[in-house]
């Protein structure tokens, strides 16, 4: 119930920010950007495994937002809308790319989640690199389900609609994806 209230408040706040944005309020745009840019970049980078391309995707999504906000009819949370927009553009980028490649990070830095001390970060780096490589090896549709669920917090219903598949198929792809990751990490991660 608390989550529902929090979600409802976030949606109201988003709608208020979008209303301000429609009226040319740059502070509202900055607030929206600061609120979602980090999560969207993480989402795009995990989908593409190309941080530079991920930054371009996120920038394009925000530019598209400011251009279309006069006719934008938000039917769900702004977070879900932006996450889906990133997923769509990432998929297009992925398709255009001749083959997957792991690009060196230029401006972007991969960071460990908060709460990790220096020793733990060093200890985790190897595991995280393995995990990142394992995620990159997942078939794109499976990877997309896993990343949209874990990093965008989308419901399986929303992911199924995004991929134009049934909820059952989305759930299967998620489970298969996690199983493959566990297998790739060779038991280093508890179930």
């Amino acid at each position, binding site marked *: 119930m608390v989550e529902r209230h929090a979600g409802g408040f976030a949606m109201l706040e988003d709608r208020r920010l979008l209303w301000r944005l429609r009226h040319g309020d740059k502070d509202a745009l*900055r607030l929206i950007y600061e609120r979602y840019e980090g999560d969207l970049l993480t989402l795009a980078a995990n989908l593409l495994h190309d941080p530079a391309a991920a930054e371009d995707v996120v920038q394009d999504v925000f530019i598209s937002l400011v251009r279309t906000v*006069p006719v934008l009819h938000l039917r769900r949370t702004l977070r879900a809308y932006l996450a889906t927009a990133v997923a769509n553009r990432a998929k297009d980028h992925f398709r255009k790319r001749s083959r997957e490649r792991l690009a060196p990070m230029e401006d972007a*830095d991969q960071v460990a989640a908060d709460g990790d001390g220096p020793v733990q970060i060093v200890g985790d780096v190897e595991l995280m690199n393995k995990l990142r490589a394992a995620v990159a090896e997942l078939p794109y549709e499976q990877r997309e389900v896993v990343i949209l669920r874990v990093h965008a917090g989308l419901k399986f219903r929303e992911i199924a609609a995004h991929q134009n598949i049934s909820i059952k198929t989305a759930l299967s792809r998620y489970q298969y994806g996690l199983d493959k*990751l566990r297998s790739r990490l060779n038991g280093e991660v508890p179930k």
Partner: protein
Amino acid sequence: MESLLRKLRYQATAARRERTLEHIFNAMDESQEHAPATGRVQIGRMTMSTRTVRFALAAAVILVVLGGISFWPCGRSGKSQWWLAPSAAWGQEILAALDTDRAVTCREQTVFVGPDGSQHTSSTWDTFYVSKDSYRRDIYDGQVLREIQWYVPDGDGMIQHYVRYDLRCYGATRHQGRFAVNDPVAWMRVLAGQLDKADRLLGEAAIEGHDCVGFEIHANQYGSYPDTWIDHIWFDVQTKLPVRIEQMGRPVTGDATRTFTIVMDQFVYDAQLPADTFLPQPPPAGFINAHPDDLPRR
């Protein structure tokens, strides 16, 4: 596993974030430069489609397919082909032209597309009247006027008045926000503003007696939509104003085998409309004040 995956996070540098924000602010400034001027009336009317026009469009498509068309950047020589120049200049010119036009007429209808490509045009079609802050939508079923809706500003929202002639009822409903999502002129603006991202030049074709040039834009260029959603916009090569807009590949609810296309065309600009066009009219005698969903089933 999920908690470990959540640690796979990326963060841009502060410098990169500032650069990105600057680009986004610039895009916002450009969008606002071409926003509709306040106080200027833009009126749109959508009129009914005709068989003749459908034949003309089919003929145009056949000509394009059989005759071949000149794609970017190899256009026919010998006449001004402004669309072959970078879109940054003429795209803004189109937006500016939309600012100066006070009235527009066009039609809107829905075409259902089957898995084999077969098409079926819905018998229901709309006539839209669009002004700066008020709208009217006349809905026809074939030749019969089924309903009129008037959208009148009310604070930060709008009140929709309606009269259902087929159900002999009337009423009013308040909506949040503007009508813009259904505003054909707003759609023109969005598409014209995205021409620099057009995925394909469709070439030239004769539509409704106009020499036109068309562009294809994937809907994911302007919103969070599947890449199967594709829009075509055709401009008159003389006036540079839109002649036809097609929103294709939209899913049919409950029927994954079919899609539908929304077609807006037969645009006529500077239409003269009666002053009371946007004033809700009283219902005919005998109509009851009720929402259609609340009416007793026949």
